[in-house]
């Protein structure tokens, strides 16, 4: 009782089951993942919907999920009338999907009734009607205040009751009654022939909405499909949509999102390889873009993806690695050999691996699993390695549509994704499954065979919205990571491996030679300068010697002149001469004497 009381007020706050965007026809949300998207809001409210399918196609589960979601998510109680399975069987069967029928029944959100009729116990005398069934349904509806009703394989009545004419007219009456009561009803029906919707043709009573469930096996792998055959008064998706039944019930996968209107962030993230970032306009990849790394076997696709993951984790972003070929341990070990240690990121919870062979389930299962893992982990980087393995489980067409959906989904989430793709040798640019047009950046890896060896090369085949290098770069895996090397162009194109090395050596030799030559010249100059300087010294010495001599001569001759004059004076004195010049000298000299 306490539970019931608690549930009453909360039902007011529950979201309204009818979607706002369907103006014309009121719809009742199924709560089934993806179905409301296709139907534009759900099943027609207050009207019957026929769900038809072969044995094991998930009809009963569809009905039950419709009720359970209605009761738990939209506050609409429901009635389940089972004509085939007993209540305890039903409860057990759906318990594995996380639906607790007993609890819902106890909370009066659901009423389950098992209508068990066995022909062998029956006798028939005269006319009858199905008022008893009507009363049971009406009673059940009234008990829980149901807005939704599921009649699980109503057609069982045809098998068990005599006089099909009466059954038909009574079923017609039942549908009218359900419509009048404005109960959103799901009627399941068995389909045993491909050209008929139902075994007993009850689709003629249900004119509003018909959904076909299909379960087919192709190449040993089962896929479930859902198609809306008709939906009166409403637009709807007309394709066959794959759907899955797993531990959370039914999930329908719309082929593609309604519009291409995801954001395009201008933010750039590093690819983890510095020189690759350089090739991509120097800034790396756009956040939220999808990158394809395709190449033949052993070209290093996984390594590039691992570099990217490593870089993301270094930034503190979360990364999710879908490995369809190797186990996580193997990837971690292999990447360690080139100096990329992913284990710390796993331990820190930044990196999660999801490793499984896609053959485990169908392609839809793979897609759904990826969806679920992405939704629960919320990574900013995702690696799908390799997408080509998906071709093992499905046709090209399906893989392509699946990838379209995945890419759309990832883009709307703003997740940067690297898809690796194994291409057959010789068809390099024809990516498997034609996924290239979905991708924003395409890195092509290839082996170049030159001079008896194979070397890895990488180039950017396309990269939307950024300038990118048109060069082919060789890349080598070293002990400390992946390195992109310089381009060496030779006569046969890009030089790689030992051809590159010899070219490198040649270039080194040329450089050395030039340097040596330069050195020689420099030395010569020096020598010349020294010679010149030596000569200069010599000349100066010579000059100085000469100068000395000349100076000496000059001073000598001066001295000589003085001596001559002196001598002459003395001669005058001694002769007492009277020449004017001598008189002065003589008077002066004489006077003291006088």
């Amino acid at each position: 009782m306490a539970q019931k009381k608690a549930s009453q007020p909360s039902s007011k706050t529950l979201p309204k089951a009818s979607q706002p965007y369907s103006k014309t026809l009121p719809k009742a949300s199924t709560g089934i993942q993806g179905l409301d998207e296709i139907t534009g809001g759900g099943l027609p409210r207050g009207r019957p919907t026929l769900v038809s399918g072969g044995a094991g196609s998930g009809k009963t589960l569809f009905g039950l999920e419709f009720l359970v979601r209605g009761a738990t998510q939209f506050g609409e109680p429901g009635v389940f009338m089972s004509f085939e399975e007993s209540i305890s069987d039903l409860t057990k069967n759906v318990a594995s999907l996380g639906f607790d029928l007993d609890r819902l029944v106890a909370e009066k959100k659901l009423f389950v009734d098992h209508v068990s009729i066995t022909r062998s116990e029956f006798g028939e005398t005269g006319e009858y009607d199905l008022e008893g069934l009507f009363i049971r349904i009406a009673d059940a509806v009234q008990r829980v205040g149901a807005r939704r009703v599921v009649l699980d394989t109503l057609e069982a009545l045809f098998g068990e009751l005599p006089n099909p004419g009466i059954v038909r007219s009574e079923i017609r009456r039942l549908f009218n009654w359900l419509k009048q009561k404005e109960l959103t009803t799901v009627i399941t029906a068995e389909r045993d022939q491909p050209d008929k919707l139902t075994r007993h043709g009850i689709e003629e009573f249900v004119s509003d909405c018909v959904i076909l469930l299909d379960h087919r096996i192709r190449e040993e792998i089962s896929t479930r499909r859902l198609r809306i055959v008709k939906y009166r008064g409403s637009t709807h998706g007309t394709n066959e949509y794959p759907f899955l039944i797993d531990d959370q019930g039914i999930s329908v996968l719309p082929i593609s999102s309604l519009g291409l209107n995801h954001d395009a962030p201008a933010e750039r993230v590093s690819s983890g390889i510095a020189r690759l970032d350089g090739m991509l306009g120097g800034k790396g990849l756009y956040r939220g873009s999808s990158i394809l790394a395709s190449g033949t076997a052993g070209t290093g696709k996984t390594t590039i993806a691992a570099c990217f993951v490593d870089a993301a984790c270094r930034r503190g972003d979360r990364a999710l690695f879908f490995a369809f070929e190797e186990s996580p341990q193997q990837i971690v070990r292999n990447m360690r050999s080139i100096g990329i240690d992913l284990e710390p990121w796993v331990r820190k919870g930044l990196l999660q691996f999801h490793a499984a062979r896609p053959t485990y389930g169908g392609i839809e299962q793979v897609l759904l699993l990826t969806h679920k893992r992405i939704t629960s982990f919320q990574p900013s980087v995702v690696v799908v390695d390799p997408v080509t393995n998906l071709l093992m489980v499905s046709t090209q067409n399906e893989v392509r549509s699946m990838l379209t959906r995945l890419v759309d989904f990832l883009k709307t989430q703003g997740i940067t994704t690297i898809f690796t793709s194994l291409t057959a040798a010789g068809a390099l640019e024809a990516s498997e499954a034609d996924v290239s047009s979905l991708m924003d950046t395409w890195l092509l890896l290839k082996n170049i065979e030159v001079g008896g060896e194979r070397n890895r090369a990488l180039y950017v085949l396309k990269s939307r919205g950024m300038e990118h290098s048109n060069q082919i770069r060789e890349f080598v895996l070293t002990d400390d990571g992946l390195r992109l090397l310089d381009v060496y162009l030779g006569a046969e194109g890009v030089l790689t491996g030992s051809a590159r090395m010899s070219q490198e050596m040649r270039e080194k030799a040329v450089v050395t030679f030039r340097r040596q030559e330069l050195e020689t010249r420099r030395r010569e100059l020096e020598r010349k300068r020294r010679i010149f300087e030596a000569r200069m010294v010599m000349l100066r010495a010579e000059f100085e010697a000469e100068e000395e001599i000349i100076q000496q001569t000059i001073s000598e001759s001066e001295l000589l002149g003085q001596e001559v004059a002196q001598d002459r004076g003395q001669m005058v004195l001694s002769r007492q001469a009277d020449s004017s010049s001598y008189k002065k000298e003589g008077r002066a000299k004489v006077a003291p004497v006088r």
Partner: protein
Amino acid sequence: MPITKTKTRARVRKPAARKPVVWKLRLYVAGQTPKSIYAFANLKVLCEEHLKGRYQIELIDLRKNPQLARGDQIVAIPTLVRKLPLPLRTIIGDLSNSVRLLVGLDLRKVD
């Protein structure tokens, strides 16, 4: 209980109903519809003829007690259920065909 009942039933048949068993019949109807009234009348006539003095008819109107429909798995109306003697037998329809009703109830003519 069932064992003793089958014994009594066996005695009914062979020693020509020396110890008569009371037949418990239950007729499900939904309101006073012509079909229901007709069925009840037919049943009454048959019982008077073949089971005089050793039958009980319980008339259940599902309009008044809808929850009772689940117990006997009632889908069609009218439905006649033979509760006793065992095994349970169910007959649907307005009981207009008396031959089929006799066969259905496993009721042989008492000579």
